[in-house]
């Protein structure tokens, strides 16, 4: 089926735009950038139609990548039902965001650079989802991280942007550290990295009760996932990543790349099922992240920051789903989230575009008059993320919460509270943007069709995407215990969403000013949330500072210069005489150099002759 064509189209787009884009006109750049992704999307559709119901995995082997001893790692692509979902999401949403970017980036410098990075990202993301072994997945995994770094630092003249890029890369590296250790352990225990072989072998293993090998592997994979998917304690890079252009936030930092951790966890479901302790860790970390990020999101004033914490929080839900064994629900939420969160970001981008770069919610307001399409589509996204039926978010979130209730009710209740907060902060942002009076000083205008059209498509998907029955489609891969749907739970979670929206309406539309007075009365808590629990500051003081200062004073000035070199120089001082002789050698006359070489060799020969020869 030529699966390799799927990622290769964007790679070609990247090369063309990257190498020649500087001298090409914008329509040409658009043609290569959007055309390559469109071709990729078309090839995905054709492939999936050709493969039909995908009851078994379809694998293609291309060439051996690494071979050492009996360790053989191939460049193999595969498609199964999970990959199919991911392929559709990545190329579909990716295509929409590429189209949107034509409009959004039209006034920006580095147009070709932006699209070549975006194409490169598509290439690596597709490699990631198509990979048939852990190391090839890691290629995509690191590759998307690279593109994320490049795009966060897209405005490289600004220090905050490049610093945010570095932070993203380095924090991800910490996650990748865990992932690579997991890879080493998998090879050590399974002698292979091939998904099919590893998972088949794992199926025959007993379920571990303590911290056995599989559990360690899964926990290390979780470290990797926590880095890429911004979970506690490695989530700190994602909010900063909003320094990149908004389409990037939508594509990479909401819809696709950050879900790679969820995908990888679902992919390794067989391993996780045999390691219940690791599952618990996944669930707890997911839940804690969902809750904490939501609390921070409540009080942020930058529209993109609100949505960024929302992304962290929603990713937490996905991990919660995976952790309680509802992998298909997690992947379902991954898909619906890709729709509505991409829409939220693109809509935010449209607003920012309308306001010539303004991102502060306090400088917005009343925009529904000026940007009606953006307003309507963003409302769809808001309702979807709040979990109001029949919009997409309702179905997937409900599945996760129901599964969490079966696992343990307290998880469900925290999830419900988080859902209420989610509805509140999203609608807070939307109300502050679109309702009331305009508070800024720009001249708001609706975005061009090339931007609003993707918004409309995503709005349709956010509204109706929940009816795509992903859990049923994934059933053969993740066999789940069928629980009787508890309708009461469903009503409660919907009610939580409604309560959140109503609260936001009261505080920001009906009685503006109430929010400020509440913030004042809860000063300490408000400050704590507003400053994101001071996590960045703590990390800086506890890790970065000691490492840098220690390296400088103790290791470099201390050990290297103070200790080792001092000893060497002590020896050297005695042999300064030798140094003086060497200086004489440096006559600059090549014949004398050559003579010295020859002379030295002769001396050596003689020495050897005296010592060992005559015998």
């Amino acid at each position, binding site marked *: 089926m030529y699966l390799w064509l799927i990622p290769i189209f964007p790679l070609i787009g990247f090369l063309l735009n990257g190498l020649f884009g500087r001298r090409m006109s914008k329509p040409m750049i658009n043609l290569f950038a959007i055309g390559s992704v469109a071709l990729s999307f078309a090839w995905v559709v054709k492939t999936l139609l050709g493969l039909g119901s995908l009851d078994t995995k379809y694998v293609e082997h291309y060439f*051996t*990548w*690494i*071979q*050492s*001893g009996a*360790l053989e790692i191939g460049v193999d692509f595969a498609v199964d039902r999970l990959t199919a979902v991911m392929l559709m999401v990545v190329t579909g949403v990716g295509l929409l965001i590429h189209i949107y970017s034509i409009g959004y980036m039209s006034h920006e410098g580095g147009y070709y650079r932006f699209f070549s990075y975006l194409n490169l990202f598509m290439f690596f993301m597709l490699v990631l989802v198509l990979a048939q072994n852990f*190391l090839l997945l*890691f*290629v995509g995994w*690191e*590759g998307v991280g*690279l593109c994320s*770094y490049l795009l966060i630092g897209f405005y*490289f*003249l600004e220090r905050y942007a*490049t*610093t945010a*890029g*570095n932070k993203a*890369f*380095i924090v991800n*590296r*910490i996650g990748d*550290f865990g992932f*690579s*250790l997991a890879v*080493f352990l998998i*090879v*050590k225990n399974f*002698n292979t990295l091939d998904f099919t072989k590893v998972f088949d072998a794992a199926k025959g293993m007993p379920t571990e009760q303590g911290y056995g090998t599989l559990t360690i592997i899964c926990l290390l994979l979780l470290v990797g996932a926590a880095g890429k998917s911004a979970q506690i304690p490695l989530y700190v890079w994602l909010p900063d990543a909003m320094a990149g252009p908004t389409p990037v936030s939508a594509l990479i930092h909401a819809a696709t790349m950050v879900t790679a951790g969820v995908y990888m966890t679902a992919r390794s479901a067989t391993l996780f099922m045999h390691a219940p302790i690791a599952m618990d860790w996944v669930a707890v970390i997911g839940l804690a992240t969902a809750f904490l990020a939501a609390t921070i999101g409540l009080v942020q004033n930058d529209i993109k920051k609100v949505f960024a914490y929302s992304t962290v929080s929603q990713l937490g839900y996905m991990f919660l789903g995976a952790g309680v064994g509802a992998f298909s629900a997690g992947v379902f939420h991954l898909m619906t989230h890709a729709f509505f969160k991409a829409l939220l970001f693109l809509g935010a981008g449209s607003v920012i575009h309308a306001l010539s770069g303004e991102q502060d919610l306090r400088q917005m307001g009343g925009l529904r008059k000026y940007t009606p399409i953006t307003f309507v589509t963003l409302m769809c996204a808001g309702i979807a993320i709040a979990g109001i039926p029949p919009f997409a978010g309702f179905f997937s979130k409900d599945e996760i919460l129901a599964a969490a209730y079966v696992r343990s009710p307290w998880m469900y209740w925290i999830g419900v509270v988080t859902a209420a907060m989610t509805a509140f902060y999203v609608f807070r942002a939307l109300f502050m943007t679109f309702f009331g009076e305009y508070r800024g000083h720009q001249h708001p205008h609706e975005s061009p069709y090339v931007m609003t059209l993707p918004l409309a498509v995503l709005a349709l998907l956010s509204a109706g995407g929940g009816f795509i029955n992903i859990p049923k489609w994934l059933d053969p891969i993740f066999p789940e215990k069928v629980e009787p749907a508890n309708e009461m739970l469903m009503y409660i979670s919907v009610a939580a969403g409604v309560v959140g929206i109503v609260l936001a309406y009261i505080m920001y539309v009906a009685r503006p000013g109430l929010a400020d007075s509440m913030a004042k009365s809860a000063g300490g808590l408000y400050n704590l949330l507003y400053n994101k629990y001071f996590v960045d500051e703590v990390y800086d003081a506890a890790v970065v500072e000691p*490492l840098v200062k220690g*390296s*400088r004073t103790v*290791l*470099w000035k201390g*050990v*290297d210069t103070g200790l*080792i*070199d001092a000893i*060497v120089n002590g020896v*050297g001082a005695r042999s300064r005489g*030798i*140094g003086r002789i060497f*200086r004489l050698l*440096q006559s*600059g006359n*090549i*014949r004398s*150099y*050559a003579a010295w070489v020859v002379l*030295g*060799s002769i001396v*050596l*020969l003689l020495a*050897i*002759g005296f010592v*060992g020869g*005559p*015998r």
Partner: protein
Amino acid sequence: MTLLDVVIFLPLAAFLMILFFPKGSVEGIRRFSLIASTAIFIFSLGLIGPYWFNTPGRWTFVTDLPWISSPAIRYHVALDGISLWLVILSTLLTPICVLVSWRHIDKRVKEFFAFLLLLEFGLVGVFCALDFFLFYVFWEVALVPMYFLIGVWGHDRRIYSAVKFFLYTMAGSVLMLCAIIYLYTQAGNTFDYVRIVAGLQNGSIPLDSGPQLMLFLAFFVAFAIKVPLFPLHTWLPDAHVEAPTAGSVMLASVMLKMGTYGLLRFCVPMFPEAARRCSGWIITLAIIGIIYGALVAMVQPNMKKLVAYSSVSHLGFVVLGIFTFTQQGFDGAVYQMLNHGVSTGALFILVGFLYERNHSLEIASYGGVATPAPNLSIVFMITMLASIGLPMLNNFIGEYLVLQGAALVYFKWSVFAAIGVILSACYMLWLYQRVFFGRASDEVSRHMPDLNMREYAIIVPLIVLMVWMGTFTQSFIPPISASNAVLLGPIDAGRQVRNSTPPKGLRAQQNRAQQNKAGAKELSDAR
């Protein structure tokens, strides 16, 4: 006379020919050096021939002639899968260094290029000499030109650095010489590597564990200084900072590999028992070096020092790989030698480009270079990414195999060593941010020209190699693997004597042990 002999002696011939050029014909000397070194590189590509379709584990291009009858010194050179790529690495980097020095070197041009070619002669010789005395001669031949490259064409503190470099290396060399002479007498008056290894393996050369340990340590210290292994590394940053660009490139890319090559070729197969006894200590030092080098690199204000300390870190991976005594560790170590040669060489070259423009190595005097010189920034970015081990670029493969090999033996080793991978991202990204991002502040940065044709010709081949070596590793690894299996033979034999149950890990290890026996047999047959 084999092709290998041609490749070994052409640099010497070119060196001698340069001596006959009149001092004034600077342009002629440059052109001649470029043509000669390129021709040597093309010849050396012919060495791949026997490895194209199959992967012989035994020697190819053997020449074994008597040189001096008493003591019995032979001109014995040959190639295996490890030497092959190291020779080609040397011959590739020499023309690149000629181009790098094209304008940069303007005093004593004749001597400079002569030394560069003499250096190539020594380096190529070191990697294929199979007679200990011959090896030692080449080892010293390589040392001398490097001493002068640093001492004559270096920066302000060049004398200090050159002497430090020389003393460090000489100290090791003397130890090695003693060990060689001792071996010579023990082995019944032969310097021949193949014969000595075979003799040590089948017991016809008696060697108790005490002398074995001493010999091992003597060789080990000589090689460890060259690598350089922590804590013997302090000559390296000084030598790099002071050396001209070409000197830094040859030093980092090829000369450091003399040390790791020596460990792999001599220390481990000849003294397997001692190597195994010391491996815990050595690996500890290697891991300290990995982390220590990275941490110190992180706080360097000088670009060249930063890259130099990063070399300490990267070479730690190589030593780690060797002393895991696994196929993956060995393969990764050799591959990492080549990778480091390409990517760190490229880093030094790029730092040299910056220096030629702004005449400063201090990071603080840069900033915003990406605006005036976008293409320079792109190639620097790719090189940086290769250096920090991004998949599909070369270093990733080497680091992965080394760490995988380490994990197969002791998982903890890989945990500690992998920290170095995190830190490498820190120091390189911070460097990149400070040099290339931001607004171009001062006049110099604003008038920084982008790459010219000569610079493209230098850097593009290396970039292509980085991608190629990271993606299509099978063009390079099979000969390395086959030769490593042979080298692993004695140490595996030792392990099987010690404990009858094979260690947990790849089932492959067992299959490989059998391959090794076959390989060892081939090795003795080759005699």
